[in-house]
């Protein structure tokens, strides 16, 4: 069975129409994730794009065929811990799953997630990283990369987008020593699906998947380029695809001949102002991260 045939055989757990923007690869990632995780799942969608597009529902109607709820922006992991602990107590194996944006994960929800990881709570936490608070008009998050325009790191006389680098959340999560951590991309579906299956089978602690998504509305590109953009992200080594399983790092997509970073940056409006210096600084950051990752994977 091909991977497409396999996915076609899974039921879509999300309501048929949700109001995500045209070409949204977060909608794609969420539908795919929940198809793989299946019926025996309770899913938390904190405030962010996927909450905003009514995947939790509207008024007295639900957005999904499985139990779904809005946690607070900053307590997704803790609420899932409570749910999971009770099901463990009564002897029922239920997937307690977060599908949370980078704001709810790297920023406001970081403490709760770190706590759950440290305690070894058996939840599956999926972060959809579109590098900012896209639902409310693209404010910066700690996942926004250097130089990026956002509505709170605008471009003007005195500043040119965000002045600091993106927080390395995948590595931070791996450093918690959790049983499974992986990065993934909607452009590499078989890899993403395999990782979701692995996460589903983790029973001895927290599984974290960091999906590098993008946002046509916020980043500024045409909707049909949605997959092309994140593929370029991977091919430029901007979005390294690897996993950390039982203490070992493994590079899943070894980009031997990366495309020039400029090709990636120039394909969207949020970087259109970046200077050669900023590109050089970004390139240096990416090189360091990549070299470090290669070392970790060699160990």
């Amino acid at each position, binding site marked *: 069975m091909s991977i497409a045939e396999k996915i076609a055989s899974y039921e879509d757990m999300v309501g048929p129409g949700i109001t995500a923007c045209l070409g949204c690869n977060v909608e794609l990632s969420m539908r795919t994730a929940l198809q793989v995780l299946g019926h025996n799942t309770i899913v938390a969608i904190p405030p962010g794009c996927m909450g905003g597009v009514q995947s939790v529902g509207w008024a007295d109607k639900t957005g999904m065929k499985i139990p779904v709820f809005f946690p607070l922006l900053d307590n997704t992991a803790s609420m899932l811990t*409570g749910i999971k*602990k009770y099901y463990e107590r009564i002897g029922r194996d239920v997937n307690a799953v977060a599908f949370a944006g980078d704001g709810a994960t790297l920023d406001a929800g970081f403490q709760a997630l770190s706590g759950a990881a440290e305690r070894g709570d058996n939840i599956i936490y999926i972060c959809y990283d579109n590098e900012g608070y896209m639902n409310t008009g693209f404010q910066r998050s700690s996942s926004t990369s250097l130089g990026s325009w956002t509505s709170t790191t605008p471009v003007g006389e005195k500043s040119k987008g965000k002045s600091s680098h993106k927080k390395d959340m995948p590595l931070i999560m791996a450093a918690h020593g959790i049983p499974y951590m992986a990065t993934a991309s909607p452009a590499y579906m078989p890899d993403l699906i395999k990782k979701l299956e692995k996460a589903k089978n983790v029973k001895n602690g927290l599984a974290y998947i960091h999906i590098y998504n993008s946002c046509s509305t916020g980043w500024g590109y045409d909707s049909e380029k949605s997959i092309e953009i994140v593929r370029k992200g991977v091919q430029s080594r901007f979005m390294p695809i690897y996993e950390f399983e039982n203490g070992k790092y493994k590079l899943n997509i070894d980009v031997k001949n990366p495309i020039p970073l400029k090709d990636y940056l120039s394909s969207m409006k949020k970087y259109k102002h970046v200077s050669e210096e900023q590109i050089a600084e970004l390139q240096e950051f990416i090189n360091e991260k990549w070299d470090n990752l290669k070392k970790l994977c060699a160990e």
Partner: protein
Amino acid sequence: MKNIKVLDGNHAAAIGAILSKPDVVAAYPITPQTPLVQHFSQYVADGVMNSTIVEPESEHSAMSVLTGASLAGARTFTATSSQGLALMYEPYFRASTMRLPIVMNIVNREMISPQSVWGGPQDSLTVRDAGWIQIYVEDNQEILDMTIQAFKIAENKDVLLPINICYDGFYLSHMTEGVEVPLQEEVNGFLPPYKPTHVKLDPETPMAVDPLTPGNYLQYYRELHMQAMDNAKKIIKEVNDEFAEKFGRDYFGLVEPYRMEDAEYVLVTLGSLTGAARIAVDMAREKGIKCGLIKIRSLRPFPKDEVRELLKKAKAIGVIDRNVSFGWHTGIIYQEIKSAISNLDAVPTVPFIGGLGGEDLTTDLMVEALDCVIKAGENKQIDNEAHWLINRKGR
């Protein structure tokens, strides 16, 4: 034979909770609540208690873990104080509006600044409008008994609201008293298991919890929440009466009257300071002055009818507040009482503030307060400034 143990307030609370068999407990230690958490952990380590304990990394997460567990169908318990309560305000408000019958004891402690760890219910009074039931207790026996009753009140199908049992930090939390401990079988007979259907996260019965909700629906849910508070008045009394019958201890439900039969001068109290006020009333009664007190037990729902009835023959009233309401220059309970007796405008009502930051509200100060109330009554002095009760010994 009665099973009497010497217990501090935190230990009494822990035993009350353990007897109620919560499924999930998550609590973050904070002075003066810390020993309560330690007792729990030890009882679980010793196998005396069978609850699932989560050690969260903050109070915000403690309440969040319980919110999740309660949504899955668990009976849940936690406790906190002051800054911890402030940190958990976000999930705190949400637990009530999700109609989750979580039981949380609040060991009352001042809000900083200045840095202080001592008593005063400024913490829980500040969040009185967050939709929780709040009951304030006077001694360690009442802590234990009300912790058990709390589950029965909160989980009642006509209530389904979270509940705080509030008691003073150090004065109760760390002071020991003889406390009668009920037997587990007795509590089992009193408290049925919790089986929610109104809101539940279960793959066998899928539902969305908290979809994006427009105002017309939100107003409807708020109206039902208000009605549940009204229902709680009746249920608190019913549970009190059933408890009194089964365990022999009666706390009079929403508000406890003391020597109120013919009382003309009345003190209104909350929490552990009531003890000293009772003595002041007794002393005045010995001199032939008709005075009494009412102890507010349920702040939410507020017993406005009961308070109005009890105070209708008063010639003057004094409200003792161990807290402040900035901008009113009174305490918070004073405003609550004034709202309840808005029909008694001609009755002098004096706001007292004292005992902040754990300062002792001595019998002398209560006598001072009562004298002040009597004078206000005799002079028909309607406009009364806040009277600060200041312990002049020491400092």
